[in-house]
């Protein structure tokens, strides 16, 4: 780099530029959290949805699945699983409930988590609520 461009100038670009973009970012995040309620429908977060999210985490579902595209890529996307299974909570519940404990020979299989009926219902409620978030019309189609 040329001699007219000094280290001090480079340093000022670093501190000035970073500070400027940190402030812009914080402003945008603030705005995002203001308008978020219209998109996440938080009024529908019932105690069951809260329990469902806790179960989602406690069983490390993200270790195989994606949820709104984030997670592992080993098992299907679940942000739209409610729609994929015909808008049926029961279909979600029975899928999880009847996983064979020893798996399926030669195939990927979801573990048997031995959840209670109340827990299964909460998990399904969580996935239903998630499916209703306005996420820019993603995924592109029902297959996720």
């Amino acid at each position: 780099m040329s001699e007219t461009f000094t280290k001090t100038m480079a340093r000022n670009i670093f501190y000035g530029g970073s500070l400027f973009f940190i402030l812009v970012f914080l402003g945008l995040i603030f705005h995002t959290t203001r308008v978020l309620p219209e998109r996440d429908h938080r009024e529908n977060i019932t105690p069951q949805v809260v329990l469902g999210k806790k179960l989602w985490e406690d069983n490390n579902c993200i270790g195989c699945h994606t949820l709104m595209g984030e997670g592992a890529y080993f098992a299907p996307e679940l942000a739209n699983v409610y729609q994929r299974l015909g808008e049926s909570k029961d279909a979600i519940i029975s899928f999880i409930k009847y996983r064979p404990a020893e798996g399926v020979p030669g195939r990927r299989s979801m573990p048997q988590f031995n959840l209670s009926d109340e827990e299964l219902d909460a998990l399904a409620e969580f996935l239903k609520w998630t499916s209703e978030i306005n996420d820019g019309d993603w995924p592109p189609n029902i297959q996720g």
Partner: protein
Amino acid sequence: MKFSSQAVAKPYFIAAIGLFTLQIVFGLTLGLQYVLGDFLFPEIPFNVARMVHTNLLIIWVLFGFMGASYYLVPEESDVELYSPKLALWLFWIFLSASVLTVIGYLAVPYATLAEITGNDILPTMGREFLEQPTLTKIGIVVVVLGFLFNLGMTILKGRKTVITMVLMIGLVGLAVMFLFSFYNPENLVLDKIFWWWVVHLWVEGVWELILGAIMAFVLIKITGIDREVIEKWLYMIIAMALITGILGTGHHYFWIGTPDYWQVLGSIFSALEPIPFFMMTLFAFSMINKRRRDHPNKVAALWAMGTGVMAFLGAGVWGFMHTLAPVNYYTHGTQITAAHGHMAFYGAYAMIVMTMISYAMPNMRGRVANSAKAQSWEVWGFWLMTISMVLITLFLTAAGVLQVWLQRYTDMPQSFMVVQDQLAIFYWLRFAAGVGFLAGVGTYIASFFIKGEAVGLANAAR
């Protein structure tokens, strides 16, 4: 080595390499599970192996950063480390916490681990990369605070250089952003927004400062180039990293319930994110080309150049490939993401740690550089690992393109598992490349045990 206290870096580097090896073993397990779905099921299900794989990566890179800092800061500050004893204590605490956590992942179901470690009191578990029990997270905070204290006190009593300043900003940033891992709101959208403050603002933010500082240090040492020149480059690289990277967070806010303007902002700024990595490549190559002396540690220079190139390809090119919102709409959460993640992490953070180890380890073992024979083994390790990683990335990219086409793009989209079955050939090839990578790791480790004729600083001036 200027100061005896720099030697505390050694156990950190050894632990880093050990955990790295274990990470690769679990990577191969995952690779097999992709094609032999019931492999190790239900003893080690995919989610457990993946968690071990990704968490080991984070942990060993942190060990690497810490070792690099303990080596670099006393030398830059021109004083002994404030407390080598504290550094060693923290080493054993961090290692035991890491090993115990991995044992916990493998020994009991994750839900049981959550229960016995008190996840009900402060739920932070079960989120990608942040799967560690809350207790482990608290342990990480304690270790990092002690580490920062030790470095801070060293810098305060010694010389303040641009490199130590940048390193400290990066490390303090690392610690501050990690605190967001304790924030886990009940609202999934908010959870995801701030989860990225840890994940993105680490790897596409403050970690780049740490990378830049380590790179600058090694380049000064092996090229003898004037500090003023190196520091100017460093400032420009990290300026571009944060100017593009902070708003670049927006590329994670496309499809998680956040407002649509993030699609525009995220696309624009993340499209610029390759710039700092490109500058890093130019930096390494031009400093080494203009070197004022021929340092006998040739392989350290190779690692430094390799870091530049591979970080640019993995983080820059492979990142850009799917970062524009209209493209990402189809590629989000597919094997394309996995391809990018593998090369970016290897190229930027695995390789910078190995650059530092390559430079510092011979010094700590009482020589300027390893013997020509040992270096040639290390060069073989470098190429085996690097070429294998390029192949892993290419095979995953091929799998990803096909996956996007079959599952997302055609008029007759097929279901996830039906598509996965059709990708098997690429997963097998990826597995084969993974075996190549493990061979590279083995060769790399072997290089530390190869003797041979000592080399000296015969040609100090060029």
